[in-house]
């Protein structure tokens, strides 16, 4: 039987040509003329995610999820698996790259109004995917069973415990008991390699399926005529295949190159095993620093309730608002010049977040600035 005959037979049984033609039709449809390199941020994030999957599978083949064996198995990956140190390093650095790129992607989409009608659900699926990525980061952090990770997790679950209404239940379910231990490690591992990947796959499938169906956003008002038909709004624009795909391929290549280079130059080194004292100056990853610092400003008790619980209400509302942003920011305008109020709120948010991140990084620390040493207290004030 010839190759063509094989493909014909396969088509009679699966109808693959019809599916392919639908994908090709969507991929060769002209996209709006305003699409630039900013549209490749999502592709970059997807590239890093792909590298996380591959490196994660390599690590999972060697990793042992028990408090006795976990730390040693990671050391074994680092020292005796071929290029194990690099796989480990790529996986660790990938978290930072993925969160960073996903945040930049979201910022770019917001600035260019890509979240607006009819793309609200694309945004919601993407925002939920970002939360799942943060879940990957939190669960993955514990797996090497280092002292710092154990205490970091203890703190996170302690904060979870104080969360309004469901905090105690969720913390207990995640911890698998009263103390961080073997149950916590297996639960985090199960979440990291089974539950979260399934959730992320579903959310990203929705996200990408909607991008395919709706195309990229044109720089026009959502109630303007052009939005209705794709051909009219897309005059002068390039299609995904081959134009935008080539650009995406370039972005993906550079992203992979930068991630591998950084991972090779600054490999994730060994860290002491769990079981030691609570370390001084424990702080979370950069993307949680703002939250970490914000929560410090709340006193122990507020209005007869734990201050922490009251303090968490604001960030929880912010997170919900972020996920449901397209339903809050409903003006039909997409052009940034006509959305001064929305962009001012966005800029203020970024400013507050950056300031808290900065304070979180320098608080409780000594910093040398222009040859003068500053000692900063836990609130970030010079002592």
């Amino acid at each position, binding site marked *: 039987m010839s190759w063509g005959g094989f493909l014909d037979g396969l088509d009679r049984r699966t109808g693959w040509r019809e599916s392919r033609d639908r994908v090709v039709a969507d991929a060769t449809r002209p996209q709006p003329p305003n699409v630039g390199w900013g549209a490749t941020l999502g592709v970059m994030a997807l590239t890093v995610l792909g590298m996380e999957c591959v490196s994660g599978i390599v690590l999972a083949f060697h990793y042992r999820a028990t408090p006795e064996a976990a730390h040693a198995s990671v050391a074994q990956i680092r020292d005796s698996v071929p290029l194990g140190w690099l796989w480990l390093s790529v996986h660790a650095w990938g978290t930072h790259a993925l969160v960073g790129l996903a945040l930049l992607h979201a910022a770019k989409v917001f600035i260019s109004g890509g979240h607006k009608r009819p793309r609200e659900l694309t945004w919601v699926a993407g925002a939920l995917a970002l939360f799942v990525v943060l879940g990957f980061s939190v669960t993955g952090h514990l797996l090497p069973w280092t002292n710092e990770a154990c205490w970091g997790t203890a703190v996170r679950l302690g904060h979870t415990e104080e969360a309004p209404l469901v905090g105690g239940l969720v913390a207990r379910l995640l911890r698998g008991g009263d103390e961080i231990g073997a149950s916590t490690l297996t639960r985090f591992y199960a979440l990291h390699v089974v539950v979260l990947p399934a959730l992320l796959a579903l959310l990203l499938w929705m996200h990408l399926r909607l991008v395919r169906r709706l195309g990229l956003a044109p720089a026009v008002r959502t109630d303007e005529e052009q939005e209705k038909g794709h051909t009219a709004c897309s005059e002068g624009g390039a299609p995904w295949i081959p134009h935008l795909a080539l650009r995406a391929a370039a972005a993906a290549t550079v992203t992979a190159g930068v991630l591998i280079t950084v991972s090779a130059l600054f490999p994730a080194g060994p860290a002491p095993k769990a079981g030691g*004292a*609570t*370390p001084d100056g424990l702080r979370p990853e950069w993307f949680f620093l703002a939250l970490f610092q914000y929560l410090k400003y*709340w006193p*122990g008790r507020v209005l007869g309730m734990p201050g922490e619980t009251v303090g968490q209400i604001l960030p929880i509302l912010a997170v919900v608002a972020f996920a449901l942003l397209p339903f809050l920011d409903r003006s039909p305008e997409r052009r940034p010049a006509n959305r001064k109020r929305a962009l001012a709120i966005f800029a203020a948010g970024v400013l507050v977040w950056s300031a808290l991140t900065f304070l979180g990084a320098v608080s409780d620390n000594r910093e040398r600035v222009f040859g003068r040493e500053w000692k900063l207290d836990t609130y970030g004030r010079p002592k």
Partner: protein
Amino acid sequence: MDEPTSRRDFLNRALGAWAATAAVGGAAAAGAALWPREEPPSTTRIPKSAVAGGRAAGSLRGTPFVLVVSGSGAVALSLVCTHARCIVRWEDAEKRFLCPCHKGTFDPEGRRLSGPPPADLRRFTVIDAGDSWEVTG
């Protein structure tokens, strides 16, 4: 509804009811399996000879505590900070417990002094058992 239910409608509803029952039952069973088991209280003994300077360290189900013995008796304070569950440490110079994570402080009796902790340090039950102190929690 005057129209009699058709055979198809009835079967569709039966199918929906079956799916809902299976989903709820499955979720309940999975939830029960995920729920961590309650650990029974446990007891540890601190020999009185181990108490030095009115203090002794111990641990109960992985939770470190300090036994403080004074003329009026003994108290066992959990060293787990009530804020984010870091382990507090005794600062002898300042006569207080300090949590290294968010700088919460507690007085020698475990009452909260400053910082984010919402409650006093947890106390375990201490019983005088002759030549040792029996700590339960």
